[in-house]
């Protein structure tokens, strides 16, 4: 293993790696057993370093949580002492489901809905030309609307819901709703020039979501 990879491992545990570097590293980790072991050691060392003078739970605790999570996921418990972050990476499926859920929720709440509705036919030319901002999407005849609308309500409510932080965002409110997730997939491919021909256009336009490229 090269020193560069070691440095990357270390940086990655400190969350200091760029996304493309991280992607590459994760691919390597997935293929290389030795790398996975090292990553585990690095994580523990990092925590030990950071622990100096700090309020700090025992390392055994992190292991127990990992083991419990692994057990709940139905995967066999690992006897190797390995940092929880590594355990998560070794099971990308579980981690990704949550991650995808988060993005899905947020994107879903802001993207325009299905393109194949009659809305596009009525779109004024000016609107299709402008790609940098759009009005909050109008409802469409999509089959998924009820689930979607409920999700949008939950997102609108999340400003007030906080008992354990931005829970809905953290855990991804959609990850349990396959149907709605499927709707999100289709919503993402939507061109953004739909302009709702709707009486509330003006009202909505003042407060609607906007897409801006920095």
């Amino acid at each position: 293993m090269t020193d560069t990879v070691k440095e990357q491992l270390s940086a990655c545990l400190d969350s200091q790696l760029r996304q493309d570097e991280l992607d590459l590293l994760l691919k390597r980790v997935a293929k290389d057993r030795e790398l996975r072991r090292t990553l585990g050691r690095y994580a523990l060392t990092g925590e030990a370093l950071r622990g100096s003078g700090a309020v700090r739970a025992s390392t055994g605790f992190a292991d127990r949580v990992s083991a419990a999570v692994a057990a709940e996921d139905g995967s066999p418990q690992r006897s190797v002492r390995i940092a929880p972050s590594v355990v998560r990476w070794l099971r990308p499926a579980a981690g990704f489901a949550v991650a995808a859920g988060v993005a899905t929720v947020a994107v879903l709440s802001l993207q325009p809905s299905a393109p194949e509705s009659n809305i596009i036919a009525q779109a004024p030319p000016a609107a299709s030309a402008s790609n940098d901002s759009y009005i909050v999407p109008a409802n469409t005849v999509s089959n998924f609307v009820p689930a979607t609308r409920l999700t949008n309500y939950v997102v609108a409510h999340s400003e007030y819901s906080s008992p354990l932080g931005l829970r809905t965002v953290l855990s991804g409110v959609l990850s349990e709703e396959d149907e709605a997730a499927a709707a999100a997939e289709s919503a993402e491919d939507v061109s953004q020039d739909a302009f709702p021909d709707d009486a509330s256009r003006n009202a909505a336009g003042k407060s609607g979501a906007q897409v801006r490229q920095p």
Partner: protein
Amino acid sequence: MLRRATSSLFLCCLLALPAHAAEPDAKQWLERMTRALAEQNYEGFFFHVRGARSERMRIIHRVDRGQVSERLVSLDGSGREIIRNASEVICYLPDRRTVLVEKRSERTDATSLLGGLPSYSESLETLYDISKIGGVVKTLGRKTQVVWVQPRDQYRYGYRLWLDQETALPLKSQLCDRQGRVIEQILFSEVNLRERIAAADLKPAVSGEGYTWLRQTTQPVVVAGMTVGWSVIRLPAGFKLTERRVQAIAGSNTPVRHLVFSDGLATVSVFIEPRDTQAEPMHGLKRVGAAFAYSRDLDGHQVTAVGEVPAATVEAIAAGVMRDEGDEPPADSATPAAPAVSPP
């Protein structure tokens, strides 16, 4: 690099306690926790656990002149980050090359990771029983005191808090139902107190350059006649109307009435909009993540109550929604109201 944690701040906290004080009671423990969260700089690692799901994250919590800013970094490999400051919550989703920006009202502290945990007040005590459970217990390798904030009725969830004896920080916090079953929890694996946290530490790892930026403003839509006309009767004990507004919500083609009810700790939103004849109606109870939603049809309108509260609460609040007597249906905002036809 070896980062040094300082302990002087929490020593100050300890010294600030009166020397003659007997064992602090549950109320004092809660007050200590609230103070620690509002005054303490810290960074650390925690697990957010709900059901079989667990997510490990890093947190950097900075208090500057009374303002809390936070950075949460997901450690699942997605590179996701949530940055909260006084006015915005910004979610960086590098895996989607997307950045979400959400404006916040003044309640920023309450929406920080632990800012929504119960803080002591007399009204809290009328709705929740606040007690210490046992003496000092070893939790996560530290000496902690367990404090239970237990609902007095079936309309709200409770909290169990494991508060660090030295710092009063909640090393473990659980949201529980009335039977004490855990719904969700946050477990710290590491907390480092810091005297100072540099502003640079709250910057995200990615700049977001070239990403799609989605901004959602929450500024209310002003539509004449829409802010009144609906109310909720027979609210569960302690719940009061705290906000009433009209806003544009994605997926709804007319502005939506949004009423907010709170008992001081738990919050329920009620959304009311004219029934869309093309959309499938929503009926009854649904679970969405940690929240419950209850929908019903009322007078040509779709009424939905949403909140991270027991199912009974959203159901009771949705059931109590009524249209005020003599309220005229709101005129369409874009078309002038039709002239009244007087009988011959």
